[in-house]
């Protein structure tokens, strides 16, 4: 079976007046359709850089990204990106916010608008479509941000610490929420996080990166013995602790 995303020998150096900063040494990874990948690593290890490269926002120093068999040199229609915060624009209503991507891609056709309404209805934001972001709770805002990405019908979702701006309880709830939406819409997802529990609770595979310059230290296929896999139930699975301890040791955190 062909992979949906192929990361081939990616390396990245940042240039600055003070010198060259190697962010990523060499990373290769193949991702199958529908897979949920979590990338964990210490802060500043180049996780976000990796996502920016996959999204086509950054040009890597070497290596290539192949999505659906095509080389990526620019931002791709197939890829949706979720940033650390929701970044809903305060001067736009929720409806205008979720349509932002369609506006920019000039694809505000009626069938796409239908899809927007459909998503808003499915995920309980339809009554709030004319409200402004400040009138919504943190969880609802995050959901609006996810819908803003989903209306573009991406095959692959990149989530860059997408939950880290939320407080712990909202975060658990939103993780549940986003996980079920991603699974329901059958998307491939790459979530970058520094939260080990979060990564185990959501991922099919957890990729552990080393400190900068990053390469892949290990990949763990997460197999939990619970009937219905949701982030919350995953945390109760007996294997959870074992995975946590292994990854924790591998991250080798020194305070």
């Amino acid at each position, binding site marked *: 079976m062909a992979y949906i995303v192929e990361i081939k020998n990616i390396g990245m150096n940042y240039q600055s007046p003070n010198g060259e900063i190697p962010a990523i040494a060499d990373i290769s990874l193949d991702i199958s359709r529908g897979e949920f990948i979590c990338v964990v690593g210490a802060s500043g290890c180049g996780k976000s850089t990796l996502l920016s490269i996959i*999204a086509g*926002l950054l040009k890597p120093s070497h290596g290539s990204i192949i999505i659906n068999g095509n080389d990526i040199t*620019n*931002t791709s*229609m197939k*890829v*949706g*990106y979720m*940033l*650390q*915060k929701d*970044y809903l*624009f305060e*001067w736009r209503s929720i409806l205008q916010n979720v349509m*932002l*991507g369609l*506006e*920019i*891609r000039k694809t505000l056709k009626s069938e796409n608008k239908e899809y927007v309404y459909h998503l808003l209805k499915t995920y309980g934001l339809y009554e709030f479509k004319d409200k402004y972001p400040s009138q919504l709770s943190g969880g609802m805002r995050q959901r609006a941000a996810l819908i803003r990405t989903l209306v*573009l019908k991406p095959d692959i979702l990149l989530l860059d610490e997408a939950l880290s701006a939320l407080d712990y309880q909202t975060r658990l709830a939103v993780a549940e929420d986003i996980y079920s939406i991603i699974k329901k819409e059958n998307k491939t997802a790459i979530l970058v996080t520094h939260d080990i529990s979060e990564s185990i609770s959501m991922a099919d595979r957890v990729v552990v990166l080393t400190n900068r310059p990053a390469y892949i230290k290990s990949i763990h296929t997460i197999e939990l013995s619970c009937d219905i896999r949701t982030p919350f139930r995953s945390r109760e699975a007996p294997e959870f602790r074992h995975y946590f301890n292994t990854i924790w040791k591998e991250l080798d955190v020194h305070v």
Partner: protein
Amino acid sequence: MSKPKEINTSIERLEYLKARKVKRISIILTQVLILIVFLVLWEICARLQIIDSFITSQPSRIVSTIINLYDEGQLFVHITVTCWETIVGFVLGTISGTLIAVILWWSEFLSKVLEPYLVILNSLPKIALGPIFIVWFGAGTTSIIVIALAISLIVTILEVLNGFVATDEEQIKLVKTFGANRFQIFTKVVFPANLLVIINSLKINVGLSWVGVIVGEFLVSKAGLGYLIVYGGQVFQLDLVMASVVILCIAAGLMYQAVLLLERLIVKKT
């Protein structure tokens, strides 16, 4: 404990609202009182010849001067001339300043190249350029407007450009992930995010434009409030000077309120 809570809070609420109202009214009353006391004292001192009303003028003579101007049909001519020059000055200053800021935001190279020139122009007292403008644009309205424009233009460019450059990088990254080009980044993010900055510099420009126009009218003009002030000073008619200053106060105050109203309209709309 059996008392209904709502009645309790509503009495508290009423007291709070009443206290607020009393406070607000007492502030307004005191403000009005200060003005009345000042005017009455001025009038009394002038009548009892404690102060020389030839030099200080006096409220009753200011009022009769304004009435005279009105009877001669001169009052609104002068007000219109000055207000028009001011409005053109700050509107042009804000619009052209914003446009130049857009160009400089677009081309980082150009903005880096022009930076030292802008800094020097900004620190230069623009009024010093008055005589040059008069030579270039003639002794008339155009020169006055150009002086007003010169005062507000550079500040606007710097202020708005600062706002543009300081736009949240992550918000820009967001629209980039949608594949936005530079024009879309500007219209969808940078401009709306800085609308308040632009309105703010419009507000500042109103004040600056008044300065430019009055100074311009001091230098060259045959009409306007600045002209009346200079003329009154030259013929030692302090009544006319004071009357013009009073009218100026009122006109400037009203114009500022109008801009605040405009701001509220725009902010509400977005």
